[in-house]
């Protein structure tokens, strides 16, 4: 085995040499980015537009950078396609949209793994759990409409701030299944092999909220998700549950005619299935918001901040509304009349008081799911 050992030694030696070279590589990642010059540096530490010298100065600095990296923003998610196009058209800045199917954790992984490269994400759109767990990666920034965001929906220094949200709903194809008036309807035989959840609750935020909504509708509470797990267990045993990942294709194809999902995501299916309806149960109005954050080491800091300004402007908020999501400034804009009335009217009707999961309740729910979901559904 001498040759083998020598081969291994050679490999290790070479690897070690490369490692040494790597450690002594020119650490001029910063000089590789043409954006960090003058206005760029100021933008990187700015916590509001005024610190850069006003919105116009921010626009100028962003145009100089010329590019914005976003991640996990598929075009059909809350109308992000129109938002990206609008931003590009308004400011002439290229937008590089990466990893469209990524989860919130994927976004954070990308921030950590691509740190220092020109491809790292500039801005993030995260589920609350991931946002709260990764505050050390964000730069504080307060948009010009900061005061319009309710205090409970933003972090006081501007590390994260909620952007849009919706209510957990049951979307269904009314031509394939009878109308749904209560969550318990789904246990009926007409729904055999038809009910799907958008993802695995131990994996995806949307699915976790789906199970929680079922729990609320079946006598559980925000602190008790067990009723929801039991409901899905019953669903599986009666053969009504389809364990496949629900996508626009499976919805159109008819494999998943009933889907638990956020109402704005469900509304998007209406494009493919004209008979698609969205139902939010009146006894379980579970809301959830996502949050924006700016990457502390963003390769294009001015463009990142300009993107936030754009999202929280009336134009941006109305585009989210067009996608069926409820923008965070909705109350203020409705009062001032700046809201897009037709889009607001098109939102699914919601009766009942909305409730939201607090971080502690979410943690308790996750712990329960981690130990019980696979057993119930498998």
């Amino acid at each position, binding site marked *: 085995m001498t040759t083998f050992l020598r081969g291994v030694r050679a490999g290790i030696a070479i690897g070690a040499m490369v490692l040494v070279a790597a450690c002594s590589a020119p650490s001029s990642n910063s000089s590789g980015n043409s954006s960090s010059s003058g206005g760029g540096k100021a933008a990187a530490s700015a916590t509001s537009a005024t610190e850069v010298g006003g919105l116009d100065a921010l626009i100028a600095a962003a145009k100089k950078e010329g590019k914005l990296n976003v991640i996990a923003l598929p075009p059909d998610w809350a109308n992000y396609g129109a938002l990206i196009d609008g931003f590009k058209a308004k400011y002439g800045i290229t937008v590089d949209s990466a990893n469209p199917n990524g989860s919130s954790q994927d976004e954070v992984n990308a921030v950590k793994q691509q740190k220092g490269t020109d491809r790292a994400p500039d801005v993030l759109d995260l589920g609350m759990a991931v946002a709260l767990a990764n505050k050390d990666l964000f730069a504080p920034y307060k948009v010009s409409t900061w005061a319009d965001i309710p205090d409970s929906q933003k972090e006081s220094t501007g590390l994260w701030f909620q952007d849009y949200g919706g209510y957990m709903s049951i979307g269904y194809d009314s031509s394939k299944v009878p109308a749904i008036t209560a969550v318990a309807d789904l246990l009926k035989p007409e729904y055999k092999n038809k009910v799907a959840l958008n993802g695995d609750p131990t994996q995806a935020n949307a699915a976790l909220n789906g199970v929680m909504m079922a729990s609320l509708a079946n006598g559980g509470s925000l602190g008790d998700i067990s009723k929801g797990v039991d409901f899905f267990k019953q669903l599986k045993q009666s053969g009504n549950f389809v364990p496949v990942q629900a996508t626009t294709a499976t919805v159109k194809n008819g494999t998943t005619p009933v889907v638990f999902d956020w109402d704005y995501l469900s509304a998007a299916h209406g494009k493919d299935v004209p008979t698609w309806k969205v139902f939010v149960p009146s006894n379980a109005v579970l809301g959830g918001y996502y949050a924006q954050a700016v990457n502390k080491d963003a390769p294009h800091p001015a463009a990142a901040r300009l993107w936030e300004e754009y999202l929280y402007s009336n134009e941006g908020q109305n585009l989210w509304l067009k996608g069926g999501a409820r923008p965070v400034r909705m109350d203020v804009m409705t009062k001032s009349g700046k809201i897009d009335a037709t889009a607001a009217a098109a939102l699914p009707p919601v009766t009942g008081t909305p409730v939201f999961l607090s971080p502690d309740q979410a943690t308790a729910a996750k712990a329960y799911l981690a130990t019980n979901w*696979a057993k119930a559904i498998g």
Partner: protein
Amino acid sequence: MSDEAVTADAGRPAAGGATGTPGTDTGGRPVRGGRRLSLAWLGSVPFLAYVAVFLLLPTAIVCLQAFTDAHNRPTLANVRALGEDYVIASFTRSILLSATTALTGALLGGLLAYVIATGNPKGMLRRLTTAACGVLAQFGGVTLAFAFIATIGGEGLMTVFLRDAVGINLETGWLFDMPGLILVYTYFQIPLMVLVFLPALDGIRPQWREATSTLGGTTWDYWRHVAVPLLTPPFLGAMLLLFANAFSAYATAAALVSQGSIIVPLQIRTALTSEVVLGQENFGKALALGMIVVVAVVMTLYSWFQRRTARWLR
């Protein structure tokens, strides 16, 4: 026949003893005998160096992080968690899935390769089938899953056809569990087998067949003494590749079986990218380490088995 007389090209020493059996580079000039071995392995340096940087280094990083916790402190907790029941269960399922699809892929793929090899080597059929196999061998993920859903899912073409035209109601739940995974994995295992096994079939010379029959051998004799001993090593090697291929595939499984992580790659995905259960990344890397160990064990079994069959077939 030695080639000491030939001048050595740069980096390639004119080693002696070329007629020696493999592994016994003895006999030849003792003067250069000592240096012979140490210069010969220089030829493997480019490959080893490249692999060291772009494969071994990332693997080492992943494996090392399996032994640290979320704050970069060394710990054995992640590796110990590999002993939990659900982890062992998913490893068992993964191995079962990979072995089954490797076997069916190898048999059906070998059959298809035979069919192709016995045709015109310059013909259109061969070109088309090898190109199709090339494309389908790497076909996977959401699209492949949906292709099967669209065929034999609840509202699939075949399901609807059988229901309306023939009156048979297909039970479709199995598609979203292990049996479904086996069927769908076979879809890309067969083309892969064809592509890696075809060159072996091409290497069978017609002269050998004629020689066997001239010596009075039957078809059985030909297969038993000529074809099978020659084809077994590439067949086993291809099966090993199929096993590893199925073992690490996860995009298709993720699309078909979205609930629960029934196989190891899905568990790794949950650990690394779940936005619900956070802080499990290093456990995911421990799972990856576990996968490497499993494949190393399978490779050892494979080389042992190859040596045994070579002896039996001789």
